């Protein structure tokens, strides 16, 4: 056997495994962010593409660097943007809280079911996760419309005299986000709660703790990683949500994902859209890094 040749083959295999996905992600995930960052410092022009080049390659390499902070200044001067950021954070945070309050007892109840029922219940949580997100949001449009099932029901029961405006309101946005992201909350909570040993609960009650104290002292702290992971999984994507506010929210529903989309497609102001994205990323840097930490610690026991 030719040792040198085979050593080279082993090295090639190693490089192949590591660098094929790595280079792909560098090219199509990291570089794009750098470019967004770069374009957020460019001037908009009416052209294709609609921004001034940051580096003028044709001339002397990198000598001509043109930076403008106009886009960021523009964002800060116009109330619209920072109100949108604030509102997005608020909507995402409140929806996350709702998801947690609904998801926690559900996840807990699933862990307490017997094995067969548990598998079916879990499958029913996972199923919406696989079915079209867009269509599930769309399903609420029919439910919430003026002549939709909810209004009909409320009228029939006599709670209201005339149909309420439910669709195209902030309420609909909250509902939509909680609805679509609920499975993302339940699954990590279930994973954390399922690992809890029932004998610990018994030991605690044996030592004289009331069920409520057992929950506060034992269950809650031991499921903390699941709570954090679930909250981040809901909060981060929800903050940039586009489809839900567009379909369910009113035309005045100022969420930043929608602003970015409009800035880009309707105003065709790419540099401002990039600046919006850059600031959004800065808002999300800490939650994302937190998520990655929990991803690393939780990733190893997903399949247990």
């Amino acid at each position, binding site marked *: *056997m030719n*040792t040198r040749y*085979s050593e080279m083959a*082993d090295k090639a295999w190693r490089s192949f495994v590591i660098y094929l996905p790595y280079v792909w992600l560098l090219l199509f995930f990291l570089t794009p962010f750098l470019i967004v960052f770069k374009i957020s410092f460019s001037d908009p022009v009416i052209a294709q593409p609609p921004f001034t080049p940051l580096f003028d390659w044709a001339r002397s390499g990198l000598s001509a660097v043109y930076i403008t902070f106009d886009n960021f200044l523009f964002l800060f001067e116009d109330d619209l943007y920072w109100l949108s950021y604030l509102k997005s954070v608020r909507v995402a945070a409140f929806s996350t809280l709702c998801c947690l309050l609904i998801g926690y007892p559900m996840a807990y109840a699933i862990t307490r079911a017997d094995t067969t029922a548990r598998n079916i219940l879990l499958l029913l949580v996972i199923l919406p996760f696989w079915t079209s997100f867009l269509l599930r949001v769309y399903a609420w449009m029919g439910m919430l419309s003026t002549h939709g099932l909810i209004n009909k029901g409320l009228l029939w029961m006599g709670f209201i005299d005339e149909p309420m405006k439910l669709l195209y309101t902030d309420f609909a946005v909250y509902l939509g986000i909680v609805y679509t992201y609920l499975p993302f909350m339940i699954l990590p909570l279930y994973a954390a709660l399922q690992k809890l040993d029932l004998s610990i609960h018994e030991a605690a009650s044996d030592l004289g703790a009331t069920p409520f104290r057992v929950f506060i002292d034992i269950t809650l702290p031991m499921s903390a990683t699941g709570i954090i992971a679930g909250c981040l999984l809901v909060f981060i994507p929800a903050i940039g949500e586009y489809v839900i506010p567009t379909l369910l929210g009113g035309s005045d529903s100022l969420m930043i994902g929608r602003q970015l989309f409009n800035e880009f497609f309707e105003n065709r102001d790419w540099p401002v859209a990039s600046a919006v994205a850059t600031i959004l990323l800065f808002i999300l840097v800490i939650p994302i890094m937190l998520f990655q930490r929990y991803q690393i610690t939780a990733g190893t026991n997903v399949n247990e």
Partner: protein
Amino acid sequence: MDASEIGTMTIPMNEKIDNLLDDATTGNARLGNRHDSNAQPFIRIENLSKEFDGVTVVDSVNLDIYRGELFAILGGSGCGKTTLLRLLAGFETPSTGRVIIDGIDMTGLPPYQRPVNMMVQSYAVFPHMTVEKNVAYGLKKDGVDKTQIGEQVSQMLSLVQLSGYETRKPHQLSGGQLQRVALARALVKKPKVLLLDEPLAALDKKLRERTQFELMNIQDQLGITFVVVTHDQEEAMNLATRIAVMDDGRFVQTGTPTHVYEYPTNRFVADFVGTTNMFEGTVSRIADEHLLIDTVDFGDIKASPTPGTNVGNQVWLAVRPEKITISKESITSETTTCIKGVVTDLGYYGNRTIYRVTTETSAVIEISAQNQFRASEPILDSEDEVFVSWDLNSGIVLKE
């Protein structure tokens, strides 16, 4: 393993064991035939060390193993024995030192280029391949041609008594059968050295004892050098031609089973291999026929002369429980030490009884007595006043 399997297997096995017994009882003789001091070592381990994040797990180990030996590395958990084996197999790269096998330096060679195969405690039988495919795997990787693979695999399966199990999947096999698949899979490659990491630990006691003889038999037939790692001292003594006792990354003693058991060189070995009564003291006088030790508990005790000891040295006298006699009467002789005490504990094991005798100074001495004669009642009972005694040649003087 179910009963029917055992039934079909016992007949050939018994024959084998009978043949083997001669071999096994003459373990030292086997060693004598196979290596003399002039022979070239087959495996040479030179100054081998391995550190993990600043913790030295294997610490400058030197060892020569000769062709055809069945060498055991014996130690407690965490002593570095498995790491040492993995260094030999190539799964770990040494921090310093090198490994030479059959004159070729193995350092830096990956596992798949070493003429060494390993069998691990969990057996690591591929769950998605049949028995046949498992055993053929190594040959296929070596590019052996198909008809030859078939022949060698079926030969090897018959050697480990698994003929007829070719198309079984691992989950259809018992623990003992899996162990033999793993063994066949490693041996079919005819490695220069077979490394076995706790090969029998996962088997129950009866099967373990039987498999020990089977392993020795197979090793004898194939003449492959075996290096076995184990924490079980009885297993090591029964299997091995030589034993290295390992503690904290170092070899504390290397020698034949008899040597290691009867002539431990330090307290760790005396204590780890078998059980020992240990009496601390200082050398008070050196005479021609004996050495006088002033022990903490019993005052002056005679011991056999030990080279390298001087008056005033701190020493430990080690005496094995089975070398001590227990009796109601005092025994007095020029070469006997006799101590009075009270039986505080006794354990009946059928073939032998273990007594714990507490002396006047509250020291506890353990004695193991063979129950040579049938008795309906134990001769000695708790609270009995007794004398324990041993010959001066039964004790060993340890300096460390």
